[in-house]
């Protein structure tokens, strides 16, 4: 049967899974997406937004490679705006609120319309593995699907368990069964697993809040897109978001009910939660001196009856949650449609992977998304597209792709994950990217579309658009140089509009802005490239796979353990492992030098 003979099997229909399946099928490999409920593909189970600081850049990068997320988000955007507009082009980031039902529908439509991609309903319980690597998957109902490449994108479903006070449920997310068997199967294959925790806030009824009591955040009046391929028209009405804040009454309720918290009083949760997404309990306890915390009230769709209560993630019992919500200005009379909860799930340390996201343990097996300990839709999708491309290329006997830290946030993330591992759910932050002046929203296409084209993900229409932009940009840049406009453009107070009339031919706003950014940052970019060149030299020193760190007494014990466990591929990635000091790198370099010499002269 056709289903039993795919080139790539993707397990899971979230952001990671759909990018992986979409990319693999686009590259011409017969692809099978196995998911628990094909109607619940990309439901955006947590917050309703896509993008944000550093995450927005990731969406642009996925789009530049030819991925789906940017176009899906643009088609469902009900509130979009640039963050950090005043803080500079390198950190400017697009964030958009989604109409959740549209996103789900658009994702399903995209997959169904993709030739070579088949969606199958089923819970995968086991991997079929032989001496040569992975051979396929076995479903809970006993059915098997065979393929030489399997991409696991199981999200929070592995051993998923949700908590609301002392109510514990075996769930992958709200109301959906977890994957218990697969978690055990991975351990049986030798993979270590660890527990992580995340949470989601309550949802309240849209018609039960007093908007006048809250601060309003307006969306951009201009159509803002992640993808050049998206329509220039708004997909629908643009809606505001609202901001309210907690007060002493809210905090007292938290403190009085702490004994009913599964995390604090009941001590039921063992998983490690993300610091950047703390529960309201965490905020009140750890930042006791803050008299109030901001709470963001966001729509979940054009027609959705619910509002998302951002910043209010909690696992306290439902009755306490409602009481707490009623202390917030504007929410005094709100009705809660769904309680918040904490979810604990299994992850496999990403140090089990190489830079292609293939596991070192089993050939042909790829891990992506929350399974690798990341959090966030964007992070998941980015790993999905890389895993999908690499699985498909491996199926075709082609070489894997790698995105360098200096080429994209995607490269930073994957290098961080496989090189350092994670201690808490990993979220992308601009602070993680040492070359962030180069990794901008505006130049994502220049950085990655040529790679996407080379892979075969970028079709002719997208490539033509890219070439037109690239040509216009480089012509405008040489014009600016020729007309000696660069000095003026470098002045911080000068924006493109000030010099727009001097350009021939006239530029559209976006190209003009890109010219201004390129000119303003050219000096910095040049220096950055020199740094990258220096780093590349360390990057080019490869460490043999079987290198014996234990034999080097000079390394600190910590460095020895970390290096032995993580086995970095190069001296450069060795140096980025926490606990590995420059002295350790110097020692390693001496030993590698010595080893290489001994190898040459036996």
């Amino acid at each position, binding site marked *: 049967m056709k289903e039993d003979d795919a080139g790539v099997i993707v397990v899971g229909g979230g952001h990671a899974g759909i990018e992986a399946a979409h990319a693999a099928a686009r590259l011409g490999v017969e692809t099978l997406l196995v998911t628990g409920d094909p109607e619940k593909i990309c439901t955006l189970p947590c917050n309703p937004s896509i993008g944000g600081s550093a995450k927005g850049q990731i969406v642009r990068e996925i789009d530049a490679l030819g991925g789906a997320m940017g176009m899906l988000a643009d088609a469902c955007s009900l509130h979009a705006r640039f963050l950090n507009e005043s*803080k500079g082009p390198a950190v400017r980031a697009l964030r958009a609120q989604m109409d959740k039902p549209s996103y789900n529908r658009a994702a399903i439509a995209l997959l169904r319309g993709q030739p070579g991609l088949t969606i199958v309903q089923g819970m995968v319980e086991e991997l079929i593995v032989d001496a040569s690597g992975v051979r396929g998957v076995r479903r809970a109902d006993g059915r098997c699907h065979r393929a030489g490449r399997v991409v696991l994108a199981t999200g929070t479903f592995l051993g998923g368990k949700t908590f609301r006070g002392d109510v514990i449920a075996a769930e992958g997310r709200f109301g959906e069964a977890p994957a218990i068997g697969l978690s055990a199967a991975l351990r049986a294959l030798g993979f270590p697993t660890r527990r992580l925790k995340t949470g989601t806030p309550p949802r309240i009824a849209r018609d039960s809040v007093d908007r006048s009591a809250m601060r309003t955040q307006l969306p951009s009046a201009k159509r803002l897109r992640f993808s050049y391929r998206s329509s220039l028209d708004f997909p629908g009405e643009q809606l505001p978001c609202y901001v309210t804040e907690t007060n002493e009454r809210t905090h007292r309720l938290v403190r009085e009910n702490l004994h009913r918290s599964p995390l604090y009083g009941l001590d039921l949760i063992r998983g490690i939660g993300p610091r950047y997404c703390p529960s309201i309990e965490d905020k009140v306890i750890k930042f006791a001196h803050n008299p109030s915390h901001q709470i963001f009230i966001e729509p979940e769709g054009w027609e959705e009856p619910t509002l998302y209560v951002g910043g209010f993630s909690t696992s306290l019992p439902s009755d306490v949650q409602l009481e707490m919500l009623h202390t917030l200005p504007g929410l005094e009379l709100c009705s809660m449609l769904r309680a918040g909860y904490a979810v604990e799930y299994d992850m496999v340390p990403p140090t089990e992977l190489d830079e292609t996201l293939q596991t070192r343990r089993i050939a042909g097996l790829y891990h992506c998304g929350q399974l690798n300990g990341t959090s966030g839709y964007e992070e998941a999708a980015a790993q999905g597209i890389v895993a999908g491309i690499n699985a498909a290329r491996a199926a075709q006997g082609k070489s894997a792709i790698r995105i360098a830290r200096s080429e994209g946030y995607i490269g930073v993330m994957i290098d961080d994950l496989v090189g350092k591992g994670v201690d808490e759910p990993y979220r992308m932050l601009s602070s993680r990217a040492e070359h962030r002046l180069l990794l901008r929203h505006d130049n994502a296409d220049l950085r990655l579309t040529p790679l996407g084209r080379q892979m075969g993900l970028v079709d002719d229409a997208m490539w033509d658009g890219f070439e037109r932009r690239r040509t216009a940009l480089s012509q405008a840049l040489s014009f600016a140089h020729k007309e000696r406009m660069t000095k003026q453009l470098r002045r911080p107070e000068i924006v493109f509009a000030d010099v727009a009339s001097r350009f021939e031919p006239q530029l559209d706003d976006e190209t003009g802005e890109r010219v201004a950014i390129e000119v303003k940052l050219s000096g910095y970019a040049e220096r950055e490239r020199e740094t990258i060149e220096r780093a590349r030299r360390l990057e080019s020193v490869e460490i043999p796979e079987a290198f014996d760190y234990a034999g080097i007494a000079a*390394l*600190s014990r910590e460095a020895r353990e970390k290096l032995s466990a993580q086995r970095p591929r190069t001296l450069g990635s060795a140096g*980025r492992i926490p606990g590995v000091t*420059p*002295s350790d790198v110097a020692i390693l370099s001496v030993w590698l030098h010595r080893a290489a010499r001994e190898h040459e002269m036996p």
Partner: protein
Amino acid sequence: MRLSGPGVLAIAERLVQPSRSLRPGRARLVSIADRKGAAIDRAIAILWCAPHSYTGEDVLELQVHGSPVIVREVLEASFAAGARPAKPGEFTHRAFLNGKIELSAAQAVGDLIAAESRASARAALANLGGALAREVQRLRAALRGLLEELAGAIDFPDEVPDVDPQRFDAALAQIEAQLGRLRATGELGRVMREGVSVAIVGPPNAGKSSLLNALLGEERALVSEVAGTTRDTIEESIAIDGVIVRLIDTAGIRMHADRLEAAGIARTLRALDEAHIALVVLDGSLALDEPEREVLAQTSERERVLFCNKADLGDTGARELAAYAPVVGSVFAHETLAAIRTAIADAGWHGESIDLSRPHLATAAEIAAVEAALEALGLARATLAAGDPVDLCAGELQRAIAALGRVSGEQVAEEIIDGIFARFCIGK
């Protein structure tokens, strides 16, 4: 004298009598035997067994009598017993490779070995105690705190307030000033460690050699003889305020260009060029002639000590030189020599009393790190002054912190992120 390596025990059996009396970590009075078994010297021998030794290998430490003849004989006996001479810094290198010392400590140990004078030995000891590392850490932590505010506002614009550029710049200026003071200690550290070189130049018979001998005579107890690099320049070392001062005498080379061999001029000029200080000796009893004026002109742009010799014999030249504020007197007068030494101290280390308990930069790597940090900090402040958006400032600060990290060896991004979470309540 130390021997290190896996062969130490075998060598000790042949070199030390009775070798059976050696116990790890215990001092033993032994005799050292030459290759035929004849005793060379009575010595204290201490055996350190791997890994509990300085190098992490088996080490035999011998305390022999100081005579160069005995030292040479003991060395020859150890070579005969299977040892080989260590390459420069090899002990430290082995200690480093065996995990006994950190890289920065290794550098300080290297300096300690190289220290020839009391001052530089004390300087090396101060930094070995970590005073420098603590000072750098303090400045680095202050910078990190500032970057956390900036990076927090960038990554969490909804939750972390924007920074106030004026307050931010004031804080940066303060750190910049402190780093600047630390950098200034770098030159001092170099002087203490490596000393200064002084080229003695002047016409024949002006008294260059007598000056050299007089300075050496005063400091005889501290002189260490170093062979001259060429036959016609003589290099001798003295200590002033505990700093090594290498005196390079260009005696034998006459400054009258018309009567000089070209090679001679080149050597003098090179010695002059490479020296930190020019000590110009002129005959104060005579009027200045053209070549002497030329020497004065040639050295006018650099650290210079002008000595007007033989001023007790008459003051024809001295009057003409008065504008240059020379030391005037005779090499035979104690007060004249004291004035010359003070003038060298002024020119070499600005006469600063060297407070070695204070942190100071000692190695080229440390100086480079602080300079890189200062450069980045200057650029960071320039972006604020120009009104540039803060993404540029954040980048420069990250570079500054990374540069200082080279001294202490940490990573920037994770620290900043940790700091943001510790300080700001974040999360939607």
